């Protein structure tokens, strides 16, 4: 096994182990606050669990998946060994050290601050140092990706950057820029307080910096799914990619627009001007465009594949697709969840509509459906596709894999549709318990019971993932066909150089950040009206 494959396998192995542990916590959280369980006598346990669940699934799991995908893509597109694998391993171990430091602090109850870094609530120093190490570890990965990309560009000056590599580079550049906000917040605002060097913290500035990271991080999580949509699904379905150029345009739009829009998380913050809230709402609307382009391109590619396989009719061609392949099935299920979740997202980002669902369970439902559903189901499919190539052991239980994907899909809908509904009914998020005997909450109770049962389905599905991966690695070694990426139908049409490189787009991303975030950040240096005494949870 070459070094890049070993890196990918290690990253993904740890990622899925962490994932399974965090899903157990998630299912527990849903159960204990549902009417199926008496009120927790110790609410702190609930917040401790939310912190662990969110930190693992928000920072550790997707970061490891994207990093692993980066190495796997390098191994399959570069036609030569990975450069800088020493740095890559160093990054991995930093990430592991950070994860351990953060999870021990959380487990000891010294960092029950939820996974969003919103002061004045401040946890243990070791929690934040752990998160910093995770982020720094991922920066090592960005460096390795950049070095390999530049080397490839240097040695292949006239060639088209393979689309999978282009996608991974989009993720690396987006992450590099977007992780900066939370990193600045932790280093300059939170750590001085957590260390006890400072007594007050500028909560407004901290929230602003966190919003810098908070939205684009979701696109960083999302990009592996988009990379799979563009480069794997069409090929596995039996056809070409409808448009390589459209794929690049979508990736670039995500790079440019995903980050300078985070103030839509602060619509209820009084210190942020309404003009900037509106500006960010407009640009949040812009990220709908690459999503629609992706759905269009993907469906077009699938239709071509289906017709090549003999599919006919206006819609009957859908039946001709090889739904037995986990990647195709996952793509179909992912698109359904993306459509539902995306519609909900448009409500979240609308400056006026947001007020009706701000900080309700609707928001939790939205991001679980988009990320936990549409994106994570593609992580499973990627694992099923890459695992045999990385280990040399073919996937032993394809039918179990299909069952797992269906179970995840159904479970996620059963969890999140009720959350959307009770959110509209006014249920606040992040509560350790609800009073089900109160007439107002009583109407929500049946929905909450249903969603808790959905949590059980997700738990079973997550268990199946581990079983499938472990079983496959214990089977008989066999020749696995090498990974073949889909090529665009327009692969012979010359590509503008701007669509084959990132320079101008990075400049545009930074410029838009300055316009959209410059004043909202700078205002905190003029008006210090949001500085408050810190509230340390770890003593």
């Amino acid at each position, binding site marked *: 096994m070459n070094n890049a494959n070993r890196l990918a396998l290690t990253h993904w192995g740890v990622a899925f182990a962490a994932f399974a542990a965090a899903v157990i916590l998630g299912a527990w959280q849903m159960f204990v606050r549902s009417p199926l369980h008496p009120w927790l006598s110790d609410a702190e346990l609930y917040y401790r669990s939310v912190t662990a669940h969110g930190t693992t699934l928000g920072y550790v799991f997707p970061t490891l998946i994207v990093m692993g995908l980066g190495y796997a893509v390098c191994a399959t597109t570069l036609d030569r060994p990975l450069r800088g694998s020493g740095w890559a391993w160093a990054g991995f171990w930093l990430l592991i050290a950070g994860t351990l430091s953060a999870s021990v602090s959380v487990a000891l109850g010294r960092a029950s601050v939820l996974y969003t870094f919103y002061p004045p609530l401040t946890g243990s120093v070791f929690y934040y140092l752990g998160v910093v190490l995770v982020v720094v570890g991922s920066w090592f990965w960005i460096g390795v990706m950049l070095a390999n990309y530049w080397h490839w560009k240097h040695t292949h000056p006239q060639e088209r950057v393979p689309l999978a590599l282009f996608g991974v580079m989009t993720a690396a550049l987006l992450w590099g820029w977007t992780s900066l906000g939370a990193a600045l917040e932790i280093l300059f605002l939170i750590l001085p307080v957590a260390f006890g060097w400072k007594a007050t913290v500028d909560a407004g500035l901290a929230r602003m910096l966190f919003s810098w990271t908070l939205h684009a991080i979701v696109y960083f999580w999302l990009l592996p799914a988009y990379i799979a949509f563009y480069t794997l699904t069409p090929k596995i379905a039996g056809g070409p990619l409808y448009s390589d150029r459209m794929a690049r345009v979508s990736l670039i739009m995500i790079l440019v627009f995903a980050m300078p829009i985070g103030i839509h998380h602060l619509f209820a913050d009084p210190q942020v001007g*309404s003009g900037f809230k509106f500006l960010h709402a407009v640009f949040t609307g812009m990220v709908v465009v690459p999503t629609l382009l992706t759905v269009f391109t993907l469906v077009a590619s699938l239709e071509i594949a289906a017709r090549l396989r003999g599919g006919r009719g206006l819609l009957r061609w859908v039946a001709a697709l090889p739904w037995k392949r986990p990647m195709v099935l996952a793509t179909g299920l992912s698109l359904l969840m993306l459509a539902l979740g995306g519609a909900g997202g448009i409500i979240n980002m609308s400056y006026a509509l947001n007020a009706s669902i701000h900080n309700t369970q609707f928001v939790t439902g939205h991001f679980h459906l988009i990320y936990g559903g549409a994106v994570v189901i593609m992580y499973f499919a990627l694992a099923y596709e890459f695992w045999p190539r990385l280990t040399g052991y073919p996937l032993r239980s394809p039918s179990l894999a299909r069952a797992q994907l269906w179970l995840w899909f159904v479970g996620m809908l059963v969890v999140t549709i009720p959350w959307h509904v009770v959110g509209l009914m006014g249920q606040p998020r992040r509560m350790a318990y609800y009073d089900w005997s109160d007439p107002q909450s009583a109407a929500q109770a049946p929905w909450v019971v249903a969603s808790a049962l959905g949590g059980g389905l997700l738990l079973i599905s997550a268990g199946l993932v581990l079983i499938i991966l472990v079983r496959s690695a214990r089977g008989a070694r066999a020749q696995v066909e090498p990974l073949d990426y889909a090529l665009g139908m327009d692969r012979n049409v010359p590509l503008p150089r701007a669509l084959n490189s990132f320079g101008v787009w990075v400049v545009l991303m930074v410029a838009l950040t300055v316009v959209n975030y410059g*004043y909202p950040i700078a205002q905190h240096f003029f008006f210090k*009206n949001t500085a408050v005494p810190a509230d340390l949870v770890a003593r």
Partner: protein
Amino acid sequence: MGQRIDRVGLSWSLGVAALVIIAFAVGFLWMPGAQAGGAPSLWSALCRAAGITAASGAPAAPLGAAAIPSEVIWTPTTERLIVAGDAARGSALAATCAGCHGANGIGASDQFPDLAAQPAAALYKQLSDFHSGKRVSPIMQGFAATLTEQQMADLAAHFATLPAPAAGAGEPPRLVTVGDPARGLVACAACHGPMGHKLGAPELAGQKAAYIQAQLEAFAAGTRRNDINQQMRAIAHELRAEEVSALAQYYGGAAKPASPPQGAASAAQTSADTRH
């Protein structure tokens, strides 16, 4: 080829710039006027859209001295002062306290609270509040007036190290374990233990029932007002008389098997009665 880079990059950048200009025009010029129901001056519209209001600038609106409930602020400096309290020095100072609070921090009279094994931060805060006059008591203000910060920390350290009074193990009322969300009442146990220990909050288990009752009544009446953010005043104001006595009995009287816990059943009952 070189020209095409510039064309694609440039046209995109111009498109984004146009979007920025349109969004700014709507968000900063048209919207503030539309929201106010009339066109304000250009300058005030811009300020409002940028989040600059009359309240911007001042770190916090100045409050009258009466509105500030306590001079104690839970900064790391305060915590370090309390942690550095010297129990031995405090023990010498505590001779004065023994008359009412007992030599071992457990007094004979129902009027005076037991101090033994209270968290040092809670003891320090009350001494400091008596010292600054934020908590009113003719007796305690007189004693605390002459104490220095260090002496208050020493006394707090001394009483914190004494063995705790016996606490009962009755069934806690619902108000203690889960509060009453419908009335916005947080669980007592969330700050006063065992669920959580809010810095500066006293331990209630084993405290004298009459004292707890008197303090809840004083908070409800607003005669005691040294609770930060009016937390205890807001809670006590919502409590019914029978709930106050049930809580006092649970915390103070639970030790005596003779007085059965009235909490669980009665608090849940009364809370259900008033729902509509």
